[in-house]
């Protein structure tokens, strides 16, 4: 595909769960190289939107087009091959694996060795392939500054580090499109600053298009190119951060909703 068409197009997507309408006719697109944020109050349908893009949910109506290709009905596991990586709102690591193995799972669709060649390992090139990928994964580990913990069992790590490992695992996939569901939720200021820096670098230097859900408005305004605002499953605004923040509908949607309380509320609806 040419660089002209947007990387992600969401056309008239609607999603219902037995009567509950999580998304209604949402349309937007994300251009190549953009850092795009989705914001909105709790239950607005942000995670549902991300799930429609990553394939976890199939929209009831509408289409999702990635790189000019209609992926609406494609299985999530097949979408990894298109270069879509994501993180989850609630931690979703492989808790009993080491950090390194967690991240190596991200290489799954890039590796060619299989049950037969992997078992034979030495004689059929599997070792060479594994080590080559290991080297690249170490670069990601280096970049995200998790070198000292790479042999740790993922489930034993503190929250902030787990979030970072999840990002590393998504990055290992070599995604063109990186979907992040509240990457900074529950972090302290310092951790948030680190995370914002990583995301910015991944976007600016590693060339990844990023779609990020985030509640922290300061971060969103700071690093996003464009913002989409959802409320009750509908798109109420889209555009550059400052313009969106000044929008009357957006102010109304957030009126009385304190961003801090927002985050503390249990995210029961997630996933």
């Amino acid at each position, binding site marked *: 595909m040419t660089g002209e068409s947007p990387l992600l197009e969401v056309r008239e997507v609607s999603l219902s769960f037995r009567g509950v309408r999580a998304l209604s006719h949402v349309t937007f697109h994300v251009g190549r190289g953009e850092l795009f944020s989705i914001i909105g109050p709790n239950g607005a349908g942000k995670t549902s939107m991300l799930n429609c893009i*990553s*394939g*976890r949910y199939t929209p009831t109506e509408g289409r999702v087009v990635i790189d000019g290709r209609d992926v609406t009905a494609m*299985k*999530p*596991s*097949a*979408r*990894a*091959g298109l270069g879509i*990586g*994501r993180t*989850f709102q609630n931690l*979703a*690591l*492989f*808790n*009993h*694996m080491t950090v390194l*193995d967690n991240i*190596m*799972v*991200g*290489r*799954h*669709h890039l*590796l060619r*060795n*299989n*049950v037969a*060649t*992997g*078992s*034979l*390992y*030495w004689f059929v090139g*599997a*070792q060479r392939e*594994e*080590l080559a990928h*290991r*080297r690249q994964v*170490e670069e990601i580990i280096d970049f995200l500054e998790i070198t*000292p*913990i790479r*042999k*740790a*069992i993922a489930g*034993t*790590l503190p929250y902030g580090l787990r979030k970072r490992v999840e990002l590393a*695992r998504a990055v290992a*996939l070599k995604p063109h499109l990186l979907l992040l569901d509240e990457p900074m939720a529950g972090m302290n200021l310092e951790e948030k600053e680190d995370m914002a820096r990583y995301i910015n670098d991944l976007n600016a230097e590693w060339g990844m298009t990023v779609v990020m859900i985030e509640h922290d408005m300061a971060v969103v305004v700071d690093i996003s190119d464009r913002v989409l605002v959802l409320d009750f499953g509908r798109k109420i605004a889209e555009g550059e951060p400052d313009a969106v923040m000044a929008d009357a509908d957006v102010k109304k949607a957030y009126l009385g909703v304190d961003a801090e309380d927002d985050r503390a509320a249990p995210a029961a609806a997630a*996933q």
Partner: protein
Amino acid sequence: MAQALTRCGDFKTSYRADTTIFPSARSRAFALVGVALLIAAPLQIGGFSVLSDYWITLLIQIGYLAIAALGLNVLVGFTGQISLGHSAFFGFGAFASAYLNNTYGVPVFFSIPLAALWTTAVGLIVGIPAGRIKGLYLAIATLASQFILQDFFARADWFTGGSSGSLAAPFAVFGYQISGDRQYFYVVLAYLVVMYLLAANLMRSRDGRALVAVRDHYLSAEVMGVNLTKYRVLSFGISSFFAGIGGALYAHYLQYVSVEAFDILLSIQFLGMVIIGGLGSIMGSLLGTIFMVLLPEAMSWAVNILRATDWGNVPSIVNGLAFLKQAAIGLAIVLFLIFEPDGLAHRWRQIKAYWKLYPFSY
């Protein structure tokens, strides 16, 4: 965080050295010494035997059972699925190898791996429901497969010899006929080492990681590009392959395969081996098998020792112990689930961790 940091004394200078099967040079040396001792085990010099016939029999048993147990551990421990029908695959491998040799004249040397491939095919078919169902439902589905295969063994005279069972030829390599347990021991040992190496390699490469990912968090595994249906079914295939090898080795050891040998009880025993040894541990599969094979033996020794003492005159005690022998396996499984849920492998790791840096362990 303590365990997050690499211990002192554990330095790796290349990624290659960092991805070896054995975590340290010492554990590698330990395994090599173990294999060397086993190679010496069947030797007889003059009238002197390193190990008695009785012990050789036990070790052979441990060998072929441990291969099958490892297969079950791939399914249950590493992939997080369940099977109550493992012994049927073990049996299928046994019959298939005998059948291939008896009917088509395939040399035993080739009929063993070939039988395992047939068993893999059966395992993949039985595993198809696993692509859709989990937990209790899967347990019931595999239980059904156990009974269906047992029924098949009883009816398929052409394949199994029906109620009279089937004879299996002794092992031969390129015209050289293996004779006696002491020689067959080496066949089992070679298979044991190879199968354990294959499993260890699998678990440090792409598809092995995918299996564990499916176990730990299937939703994110899927987003990482792991096709859940494929790996859930594949796991049954792999587990059956190991069961098939184990069963075929069993067949050519006893040289007779009976239809009754592969019942649900044996399936439960296989589960016991992986639970006691440690779910998701390769060496645990071997440790658990050793435990399960030696437990009834240890009980018999206890009975015999008791018989020789004054207590042996009290029939209720001797009979009670003989009965306990039957119940001991069940009891052991329950006790391990309660007190040592991570299995022998975990305990073993702790002992190793202690000795690794002795006397500077911290």
